């Protein structure tokens, strides 16, 4: 299980959210507060959009399998960046010889030429049994771009395959629809293979202009006898958000400032501060969608009927 952070809104200090808050994303790699079983030490990745940068539609991309807490390059870069859209991820895997730590397995995934990026917190149990059934639902030009060994990259390829143009810039509704269609497809394939144990699929998708995040699990509450992930310790894979003017530190507290209309949205597997009182939980079986507009930010929470 991993930790993910997604953001859309006014320029935000990357250093602040990755390193400085008392439960920042990088701290969550070695000291997560809402997961007991293991750490998130299998690599760090991010995509970050800055409209003032060269080729503003392309994000700044960074992926590394080393520990982000000791990554001086990342810290130095983060201190100079203030993106308007961000997805960052610290990867957590079970302690097993079967797992592979490699750059190709790091989130967020963003195939060359595509505008959509995806990070995943969760796992598809018995993915090896599903993989070859999924291939028929992935467009060939996308299937050949899969480089790694993760279930998450296949989910990404499935999401792109649901879009009218996988290499275009989808409207928020189309992006949300692709996420829902992908979950339905996964349910169908799981059903065909008789896979009926818990598989959380918290997805963060973005184009740089719109953000979609799901809090969802297949067959929540059913675990295999040998549950390596000790999911009974995780009531339902967590997802939180905070919304407001801008996310800054004032009087020693990091929080969203007041705003008549929301301008910025932060979504994270767990709050970026030990004090969670300025964060709200995304409801289970639901999806947040957000898009930047001239007036600020349009965002809503929708039930996921999958």
């Amino acid at each position, binding site marked *: 299980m991993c930790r993910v952070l997604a953001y859309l809104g006014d320029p935000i200090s990357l250093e602040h959210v990755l390193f400085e808050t008392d439960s920042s994303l990088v701290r969550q790699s070695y000291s997560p507060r809402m997961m007991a079983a293991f750490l998130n030490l299998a690599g760090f990745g991010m995509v970050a959009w800055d409209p003032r940068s060269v080729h503003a539609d392309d994000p700044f991309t960074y992926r590394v399998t080393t520990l982000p807490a000791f990554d001086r390059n990342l810290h130095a870069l983060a201190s100079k960046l203030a993106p308007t859209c961000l997805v960052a991820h610290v990867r957590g895997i079970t302690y097993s010889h079967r797992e592979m730590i490699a750059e190709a397995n790091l989130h967020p995934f963003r195939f060359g030429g595509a505008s959509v990026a995806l990070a995943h917190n969760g796992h598809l149990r018995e993915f090896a049994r599903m993989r070859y059934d999924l291939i028929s639902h992935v467009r060939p030009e996308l299937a050949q771009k899969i480089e790694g060994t993760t279930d998450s990259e296949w989910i990404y390829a499935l999401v792109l395959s649901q879009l009218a143009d996988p290499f275009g810039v989808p409207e928020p509704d189309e992006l949300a629809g692709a996420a829902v269609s992908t979950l339905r497809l996964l349910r169908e394939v799981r059903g065909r293979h008789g896979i009926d144990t818990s598989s959380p699929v918290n997805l963060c998708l973005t184009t740089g202009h719109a953000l979609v995040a799901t809090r969802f699990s297949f067959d929540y509450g*059913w675990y295999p006898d040998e549950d390596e992930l000790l999911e009974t310790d995780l009531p339902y894979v967590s997802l939180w958000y905070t919304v407001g003017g801008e996310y800054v530190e004032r009087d020693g507290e990091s929080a*969203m400032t007041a705003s008549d209309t929301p301008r910025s949205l932060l979504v994270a597997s767990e709050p970026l501060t030990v004090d969670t009182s300025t964060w709200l939980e995304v409801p289970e079986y639901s999806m947040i969608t957000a898009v930047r507009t001239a007036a600020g930010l349009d965002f809503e929470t929708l039930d996921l009927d999958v």
Partner: protein
Amino acid sequence: MFDVGGVEGNGRTDAVAFLATVPLLDGVPPATLEALARVLRRRDVAAGEVIWHEGDEAEAMLLVVDGRVSVSLRLPGDRAVEVSAVGPGEVLGEVPLLDGGRHSATARASEPTSLLSLSRADFAALVSGRHPTAFALKRRIAGVACVRLRHQLAGLAASLGGSEAAEVAIAAPADLEFCGAPNSAYVRRFATFRAFDSLALWGFLTAGRFARCPAGRTLVAEGSRAPACYLTINGAVEKVIVRGGRRIRVGLAGPGQAFGYESLIDGEPSPVTAATRERTLLLVLPQEAFERLFNGETNISHVFLDVINRDLMAALRQALRPHARLASLH
């Protein structure tokens, strides 16, 4: 105004007389109230003073003697919403003392207020024993928590507007597909049961029957008395409030969490509708079995009352989530 905490004579007598009027302590014998008065500490707070902040470690439960305390949640964007107001005779801060969590909301005196404070250790000593007073207190805690939960849920229902809850057909316990018990090692992994004695847990798990239920089946209907108390073993059950086409999920009972007990505790109709979101394996405790465990004074009842009270505390915390989300939209 009386004084306590080492003060002898009339002050303590007044305190005992006050404690006898507190609904939470209804039925507690005078000798226990006298002992309680000895360990209570008086605290006076000025209007506007914060008693504790949301997220603070919980050190004590408070009884309001006079005055008023506003209980509020922080919201993103430097805002807050009041979720309740607590007045004389009511208690404050019992949730984290029962579930081990932190304060779920900020408490601030809205006028000059006098409080009596019961420390975490003294509270634990009061409810952790196997003596009749401890059992009576646990039952009273359940009753008071039910009242508070109903108040919170009624507020959420009102926010939906519209008429009363529509009638829905439920799957009666007798219609469920009964089956064998689950692996006890699996059940023991639930946070709810880890601290419990094996024999007491066994007694609890054999007090009802296990049953499978497909997804999408309504087991408890808002506005009707629940036919049984249920404990989710596998799967998940949504607790919802529905008005017309609008719906709020106020809780999700996953493995180790119970539902349907409110009306069995206080005799009132269920405040929520409970329906299986996933296919589910349940422990079904019909009303008679529930009452035997709830009103008993055995080790099994001790376990059962703790399960119900922890679940009620979780339900109170869960019901705050939609409250905060809805308030943040306005």
